[in-house]
């Protein structure tokens, strides 16, 4: 078997609590997540041979060794926006496949202050006028993209509210979630409008949390006797020409903008040798409810426009044809940028092991999928298999 296709397994997964924790720093949440992943794998820190990780705004991951133990291993910092966790995981997997290590760690964490992110136009190659005019607001992008999508594909505002209500309902049965109170579709639809057609409760909020995943070679996984989940593929992509992204002063090219999520998902499915229809449980980036709807089609699970029927019929509910965001996703867990991608992997690992308790997908799910999407047009996807 060539290194590129050699088997890599997830042997440990851990989370810190998600949501506001005034007494903890982002780094402390990262250490908690790593300790949880080590305990899950039956390992201790000196067993980790190489590590990759990062946060968007809560410090450098390689400083964590001060609290973990100075074992001298290579620890590479990753800073890749919403794909930070995915990029760290790709790097850990590649370290195993290259033979450089048998056991590797990926960690992501963040602790964002209350309220919206605070981007500076000059950091995005824009004139200061975009800030003065009130256009440096991330929520505008999601609303504009979904407003166009609704009109083109006949998605109703009721469906938006249904997706958000599912997130809060799943959050209410996820012990680690931030938002643990179910909200009715009516309350979500009647909440203050942020950017039409998206109301306050349809968006995730900048949040806090840490997540860690430990991967191992086939030999090491067997030696450990770990409750492993096979990582069939992981793929990351940046945007292609003509795409529509946050803070874009223009959309170039003609026709429907291509999606980087489509590119990353296709690459992940091809490398795994499975089709979207084979997937039993999925985590799709739900920065807001419309994003989950669009990502269902962009990742290949249904045709554009079919989401209306899917969601009305309950297909994405726990117990449906394709349960999506069974832990409540970003809407219920918040968005600590560095952590979210690995939180998704943690949830799929938990589901494939049959350990998700009240939110467990019935019927022993065998194949899972994770997808993150973020600025400035990046996506990371994984396909995971129960053993």
């Amino acid at each position, binding site marked *: 078997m060539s290194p590129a296709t050699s088997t890599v397994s997830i042997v440990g997964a851990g989370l810190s609590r998600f949501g506001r924790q005034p007494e903890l720093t982002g780094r402390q949440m990262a250490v908690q997540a790593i300790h949880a992943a080590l305990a899950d794998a039956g390992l201790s820190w000196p067993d980790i041979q190489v590590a990759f990780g990062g946060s968007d705004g809560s410090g450098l991951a390689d400083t964590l060794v001060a609290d973990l133990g100075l074992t001298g291993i290579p620890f590479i910092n990753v800073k890749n926006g919403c794909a930070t966790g995915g990029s760290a995981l790709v790097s850990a997997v590649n370290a195993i496949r290259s033979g450089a290590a048998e056991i590797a760690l990926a960690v992501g964490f963040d602790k964002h202050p209350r*309220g919206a992110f605070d981007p500076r136009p000059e950091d995005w190659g824009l004139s200061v006028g975009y800030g003065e005019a009130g256009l440096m607001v991330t929520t505008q992008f999601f609303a504009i993209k979904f407003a166009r999508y609704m009109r083109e594909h006949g998605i109703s505002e009721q469906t938006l509210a249904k997706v958000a209500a599912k997130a809060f309902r799943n959050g209410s049965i996820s012990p680690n979630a931030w938002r643990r109170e179910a909200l009715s579709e009516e309350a979500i639809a009647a909440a203050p409008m942020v950017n039409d057609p998206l109301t306050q409760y349809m968006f995730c909020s900048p949040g806090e949390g840490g997540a860690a995943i430990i991967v191992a070679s086939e030999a090491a996984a067997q030696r450990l006797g770990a409750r492993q989940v096979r990582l069939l593929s992981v793929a990351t992509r940046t945007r292609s020409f003509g795409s529509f992204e946050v803070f874009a*002063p223009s*959309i170039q090219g003609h026709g429907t903008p291509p999606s980087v999520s489509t590119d990353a998902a296709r690459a992940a499915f091809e490398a795994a040798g499975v089709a979207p229809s084979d997937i039993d449980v999925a985590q799709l980036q739900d920065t807001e409810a419309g994003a989950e709807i669009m990502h269902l089609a962009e990742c290949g699970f249904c045709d554009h426009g079919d989401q209306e029927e899917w969601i009305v019929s309950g297909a994405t509910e726990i117990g449906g044809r394709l349960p999506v965001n069974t832990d409540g996703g970003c809407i219920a867990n918040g968005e600590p940028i560095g952590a979210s991608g690995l939180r998704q992997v943690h949830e799929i690992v938990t589901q494939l092991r049959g350990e998700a308790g009240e939110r467990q997908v019935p019927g022993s799910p065998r194949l899972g999928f994770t997808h993150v999407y973020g600025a400035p047009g990046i996506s990371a996807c994984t396909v995971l298999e129960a053993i």
Partner: protein
Amino acid sequence: MSVETSTPEQSGGAGQTRPVPPLRGSRCTGCGNVAFPAAVGCQRCGSSAVTPLALAGHGVVWAHTVQRFAPKSPPYVPPAEGFQPFAVGYVELSDGVRVEAVLESSDHPEYDALAGAEVTLVATDPVPRFATRDWLDVHSHAAAERNQG
């Protein structure tokens, strides 16, 4: 550069013009791709051979939303009379590029009239601003007076 952009659809506008400078974009000399703002390198083919292009002053609203809450200040500078919800979206120009812009229509603050509407460039600073014909009708007198002054 100062260019007269004609707005012939303006009511009572025979011969009337408004001096709005055009948006400055670029066209790739290799593949013809149009960019806004002017590109350093072409996003489609990677060439750095691009030439300046004055973009069309008319287009169709591709998609839009409404900013319902006041953005954080700074950097946002609210108008003197205080924040009011405003529309923002992308205008598809005949040049083959969709430009982000603040959008004006006379049905504010609903802004439903913007969906698929034809709009005209009314300002380029601090960001592009386009308006519907209805809005221009209401504001044409005031604009004409400003231009004469």
